[in-house]
């Protein structure tokens, strides 16, 4: 398939375009979005937009580059539209969750703890990353973390639970992403996340994804699964060894590329198919390397997730972003490879801030060959309950506990 201008009809191409170039927001549309956002402490800078085929995209609109974008979000009486100057396509702007305007009993706005994207909530209980202490932070990092260098601010288990409860009551917490930055502990942050995971699992029938750094020992991968994580994400970010060392000096020095790969390989034997994932940032290394990364990761049973690189203000690293024409074949390759290797693509889906393997289907034959029954099923209430039930049953069958403490054996 040849990728040309005029991407409005293809949701994946449009998503890539929008993530790369951002969007201008018309006054009327902006007013509507702003009214929605009033009173919230919004965390993510972009606007969540639902494109055709329920494809969700988080699109930059405040940044300098977005102001020059050829795409415009406009609002009419019959809804929101994106236009590229020649045509237009109808889109949806999901309503901002009501609980964003509320606060925890300790007075923290829910919106600063939980970041809702369609059916999932991203929570980062501790905004700390020790890479900043040693000046080895990832060179592109803006993250949700405190980039000023590890000034700690930690939400308590109760605050997180209240947030999940609030999101849950609006049907927005079917999947909870808990993420944590780098800490010097050998467990990759799992000991810290454990009370949060346990508490969420105890109170809600929710699926939990953990985005952490690979632990030193695989027993912590076992522990991650045993305590209730349904998915684990160790982000390698850059596949090429030299570029990895250059761009992610902390990850390279304090964890090591080999450890990332070993932990991912091992996790893929513990977690269900398609639930172990790793980010490979598209645009920070030549696309050929990303493709090699896709092949390698899928060989060991890991789902690659490809976020798109955009230079961010305040960071020294500035690489010219790639174009949609260059990026689209990488996503097509991702979809084809994951499908060929038989890895389940339905777990990592509907994520607005990255492009998922499943979305690559629209780059193959416009997505016509794809039967969306399973995806649609898992998006229903019954489907989500089924997914949760199966995940719980699987854990019950697989996890065996014996006398000794894992904490002691790991030291």
């Amino acid at each position: 398939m040849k990728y040309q201008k005029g991407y409005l009809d293809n949701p994946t191409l449009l998503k890539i375009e929008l993530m790369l170039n951002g969007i201008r927001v018309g006054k009327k549309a902006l007013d509507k979005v702003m009214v929605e956002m009033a009173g919230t402490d919004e965390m993510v800078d972009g606007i969540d937009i639902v494109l055709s085929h329920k494809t969700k995209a988080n699109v930059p609109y405040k940044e300098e580059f977005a102001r020059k974008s050829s795409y415009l979000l406009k609002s009419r009486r019959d809804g929101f539209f994106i236009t590229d100057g020649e045509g237009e396509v109808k889109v949806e702007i999901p309503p901002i969750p009501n609980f964003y305007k509320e606060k925890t009993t300790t007075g923290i706005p829910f919106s600063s703890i939980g970041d809702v994207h369609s059916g999932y909530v991203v929570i980062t209980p501790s905004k700390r990353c020790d890479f900043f202490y040693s000046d080895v932070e990832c060179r592109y990092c803006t993250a949700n973390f405190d980039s000023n260098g590890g000034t700690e601010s930690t939400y308590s288990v109760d605050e997180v639970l209240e947030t999940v409860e609030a999101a849950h009551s609006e049907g927005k917490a079917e999947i909870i992403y808990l993420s944590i930055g780098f800490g010097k502990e050998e467990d990759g942050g799992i000991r810290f996340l454990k009370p949060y995971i346990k508490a969420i699992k105890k109170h809600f029938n929710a699926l939990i994804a953990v985005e952490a750094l690979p632990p030193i020992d695989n027993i912590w991968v076992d522990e991650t699964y045993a305590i209730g994580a349904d998915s684990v994400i160790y982000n390698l970010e850059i596949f090429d060894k030299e570029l990895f060392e250059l761009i992610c000096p902390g990850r390279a020095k304090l964890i090591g590329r080999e450890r990332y790969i070993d932990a991912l390989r091992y996790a893929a034997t513990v977690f269900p198919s398609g639930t172990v994932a790793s980010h490979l940032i598209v645009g920070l290394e030549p696309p050929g390397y990303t493709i090699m990364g896709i092949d390698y990761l899928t060989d060991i049973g890991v789902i690659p997730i490809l976020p798109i690189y955009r230079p961010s203000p305040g960071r020294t690293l500035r690489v010219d972003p790639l174009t949609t024409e260059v990026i689209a074949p990488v996503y097509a390759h991702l979809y084809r490879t994951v499908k060929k290797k038989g890895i389940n693509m339905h777990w990592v889906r509907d994520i607005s801030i990255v492009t998922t393997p499943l979305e690559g289907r629209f780059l193959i034959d416009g997505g016509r060959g794809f039967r969306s029954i399973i995806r649609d099923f898992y998006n229903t209430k019954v489907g989500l309950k089924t997914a949760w039930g199966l995940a719980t049953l699987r854990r019950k069958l697989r996890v065996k506990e014996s006398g000794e403490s894992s904490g002691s054996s790991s030291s």
Partner: protein
Amino acid sequence: MKIEIDRRPLWLLLLLKGIRPLSFLGIAFVFWYLLSIPTPEGLTLAGRNAIAIFLVCLFLWVSNLIPLAVTSILAIIMVPLFGVLTERETFALFGNEAVFFILGAFILAGAVMHSGLSKRIALSIMGRFGDSSRGLVRAIFLLAAILSFFMSEHAVAAMLFPIVLEIAKGLKLRPGRSNYGKLLFISLAWGCIIGGVATFLGGARVPLAVGILKETGGETIGFIEYTVAVFPVVIIMLVVGYNVLVRLFPVDIPEMADTGGLLSRRLQELGKVSYNEYAVGTIMFVTVLAWVFLGGRLGLAIIALTSVVVLFIFRLVRWKDIEEYVNWGIILMYGGAIILGTALDKSGAAAWMADQTIGAWARTPWVVIALLSLTALVLTEGISNVAVIAILMPVGIGMASKFGIDPVIITFSIAVPAGLAFCLPMSTPANAISVSSNYVGVKDMAKAGIFMGITAWIAFNIVARVYWPIIGLGF
């Protein structure tokens, strides 16, 4: 808590999970079927029901689908429920002397261990006799055996294990590789096993077998009478066992590195002999004397329980200290097994089963004894030795009447071999504890154990044939 992830295919795990409920369904179906078929000739209705209950319990004891004690509780429920014995008879059987004897023995052993006396004796003997490589093996082997004359062999294994492990580490033996390491740990296990059959105190088997014997035939076996009958087997097994060990696992370390220092350091840590040790030792000594000389008149349980009360009168132990040594599961298991054995006997089911099984082709008492002892030896490798007693005793008692054999002899033929499990770690806790050291592999244990199993069977039958008639136990 240590976590392990079972990576076997999910379908297999599901299947394995499904086996449990399916097994219970299967058991219920077989039970229902047995109750619905016409009662075979020569068997009463109560007898048929007793056999159906026995088969259910047999399966549960062997498969370990539920804990042994819970299977016994099931037996206690089913026996009156299906009209084999009345409720009153059933529960009265739980008050059997054997149950209280073993309760007393648990408490006494607990007191000895808690006082530190047993550890002191172990360290002193090992320190005194373990001055050469072979000497140390002999010391561990004999010490484990002798201690098991007086307390549960499982407790002895657990008590000596850390000491032997320390010696192995002190000698820098390589786990799984060093012959000497294997020698030390198998000596420990075999010493306990062989010593454990020497008296009533080495394990729960003998009191249980004697309990069933008493309930079914009214006969009993005295403390000393048992030991006198069994001792030649113990001596033969100790001699053969030691020789098998040093030949199968030749000593591969240079003549004695310093273990004496290590043992005397451990002994020093214990300090001087305490008042508690003296007092508990004296009570234990008097108790054994009373068992030997007054056991027949007063009953073993009465003596054991009296000693227990004395321990508490002198505040030598607290109930809290003792609780961890009392295996309530085994006590429940006993009660149930005695009830089931009695139910099979009183309903005539035991005799009928004996008739239909070994009785159908065994022609002489000698063959019966040989077959029963062989069955007990084989079964005990796979299932708990008290379960072997619970399963075989009712059949054996049935055989006794059919072949005119003294039920006491039948009891010996089952109770003694049931304690001699040498091959596998799951056979008995002493083996499991040894294997857990990693110095001995399952293969090493099985290799040596098969030979010992055969020796045990031959030795037992020779003693039964040649020696027993001399002491008035002819058949």
